[in-house]
């Protein structure tokens, strides 16, 4: 019981941080909006190539950008943890009887809330630019679940890394050197059938691919539910590993004190 309420109190704390930094919200939204607006225009005719199951690139691109933004958002989760470590806020929590897993879960719940809001904003943006889907509400719902499910493991890994290296530079480096290649080796921008053979193989192991696929298939007119569930289940397994690693890192941090 404590675990649930403590997680929620800690979620609210981080949400409060976000609400006090409207410029930060604007900044995080600018990049995906550029992707949608400019990239969507620039590569408009790419759908004339075979392999896209749509003739509207913006319809193809929007779920990809939503998932990609969820991925990058989750990568930054550790930054807040490092701030808490540096400022003594973490120690302040640890000398209180707060439920230890709640310290990690509070950030992940926050991440999930932010992901939903951000995804809905980007989805509306895509709609304005002409993206249309046959999948309806169920499709949007699955897309949101996929975005959250991808964010959780990477958010947890980011926290784990923050607790182990305790340097913001390392988290920034990891986000750029891991998440960027993952994005380009995925069907975010281009149909997977157009990728080189080795990249198709690599993309199969890419969690970003699982999330994009689940979202796109759900938004299509004839969703393949077994495939969607398989992709989501893979993401959840990955999330469990991430959260397990984060709790391990947390214990290691406490031992090193």
């Amino acid at each position, binding site marked *: 019981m404590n675990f649930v309420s*403590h997680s929620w109190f*800690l979620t609210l704390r981080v949400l*409060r*941080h976000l609400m006090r930094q409207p410029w930060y919200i604007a900044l995080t939204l600018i990049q995906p909006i550029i992707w949608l607006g400019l990239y969507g225009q620039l590569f408009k005719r790419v759908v004339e190539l075979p392999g896209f199951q749509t003739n509207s690139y913006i319809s193809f691109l929007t779920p990809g950008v939503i998932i990609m933004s969820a991925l990058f958002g989750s990568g930054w989760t550790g930054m807040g943890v490092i701030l808490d470590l540096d*400022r003594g806020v973490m*120690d*302040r929590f*640890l*000398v209180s009887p707060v439920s230890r897993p709640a310290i990690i879960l509070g950030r992940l719940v926050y991440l999930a809330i932010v992901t939903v809001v951000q995804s809905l904003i980007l989805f509306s943006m895509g709609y304005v630019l002409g993206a249309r889907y046959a999948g309806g509400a169920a499709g949007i719902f699955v897309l949101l679940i996929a975005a959250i499910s991808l964010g959780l493991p990477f958010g947890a890994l980011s926290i784990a890394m923050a607790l182990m290296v305790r340097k913001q530079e390392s988290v920034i480096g990891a986000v750029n050197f891991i998440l960027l290649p993952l994005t380009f080796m995925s069907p975010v921008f281009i149909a997977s059938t157009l990728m080189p053979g080795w990249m198709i193989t690599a993309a199969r192991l890419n969690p970003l691919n699982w999330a994009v696929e689940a979202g796109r298939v759900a938004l299509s007119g004839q969703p393949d539910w077994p495939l969607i569930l398989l992709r989501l289940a893979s993401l959840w397994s990955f999330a469990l590993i991430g959260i397990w690693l984060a709790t391990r890192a947390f214990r290691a941090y406490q031992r090193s004190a």
Partner: protein
Amino acid sequence: MSNPEPFQFAIEANDLRKTYRNNVKALDGLNLRVASGSIFALLGPNGAGKSTTIKILTTLSRPDSGEARVAGIDVLRDPQRVRRSIGCVAQKPGVDDECTGHENLTLQGQLHGLHGSELRQRVDSLLDRFSLTNAASRVARTYSGGMKRKLDIAMGLIHHPRVLFLDEPTTGLDPEARAELWVEISRLSSEGLSILLTTHYLEEADRLAQSIAIIDRGRVVAEGTAEALKGELRGDSLEIELAEPTSEATINSALQNVAMLSEFQIAAKTLHARAEHGATAVPPMLVALEAAGVKVASVKVARPTLDDVYLRHTGKTFQQAEAQVNQ
């Protein structure tokens, strides 16, 4: 909240040892007894082991060996109960800069299981007590150092702890804020709270604490009241201001029969001497000087300072010790 059980010692630590991974021996058999209801100061330079001691006693860290009890509860076997009984103000402020004073206190209360009107009243009374009511709805980033430290202490008190840990509470504060905090710490103690504070300000330990432990290289090298510690040093120092310059020979012949005095030194009109009990040595000294025709303008008797005590027990002055650590 846990049932208050009476305890004789607010803190007991036996033979605490801890070596960090980089082979730095932080604690080397530290023993401590802090009487319930008192202010106890751990005095030592940076790196002496004060912060490690606090971390172990507040459950943030575990010793390699040894045992400790806080408020009668074993810190290794029952850390969760210890956390409910202690308040802690660490060196790094545990204040969330992006939240208001009110929000910081409320969250802390919530994590301690307070809610509803009980929580609201507690938050308001602490804001009031620390004169933060007017700043309560501002984010803590805008607070001065002194205000932030007060908020930090208020956060440590939200759940009515029985033992309060203050790790260098006045470091980095200006003299005015420091004096204000001293008053507040004394007031908390007079309300029955047991307080362990660490400091590397000799003056602070002297002013606040009923009992002081001098800690050097991970162990307690001397312990007692400030007066007792200083009393161990043989003698007070006397500083006598003479009306006019007087030769050393005159002084020596005048004072040679005053048995209580030793170590005369004269420089121009100022005479320095030591006496086992300064106050009792003054009258015969004045008589002897008068008899020799030496006029005295003023006499000052100074008790030894904690600085002298530190020098005696560790073989170095406080400044030297700090400089060594900082290298």
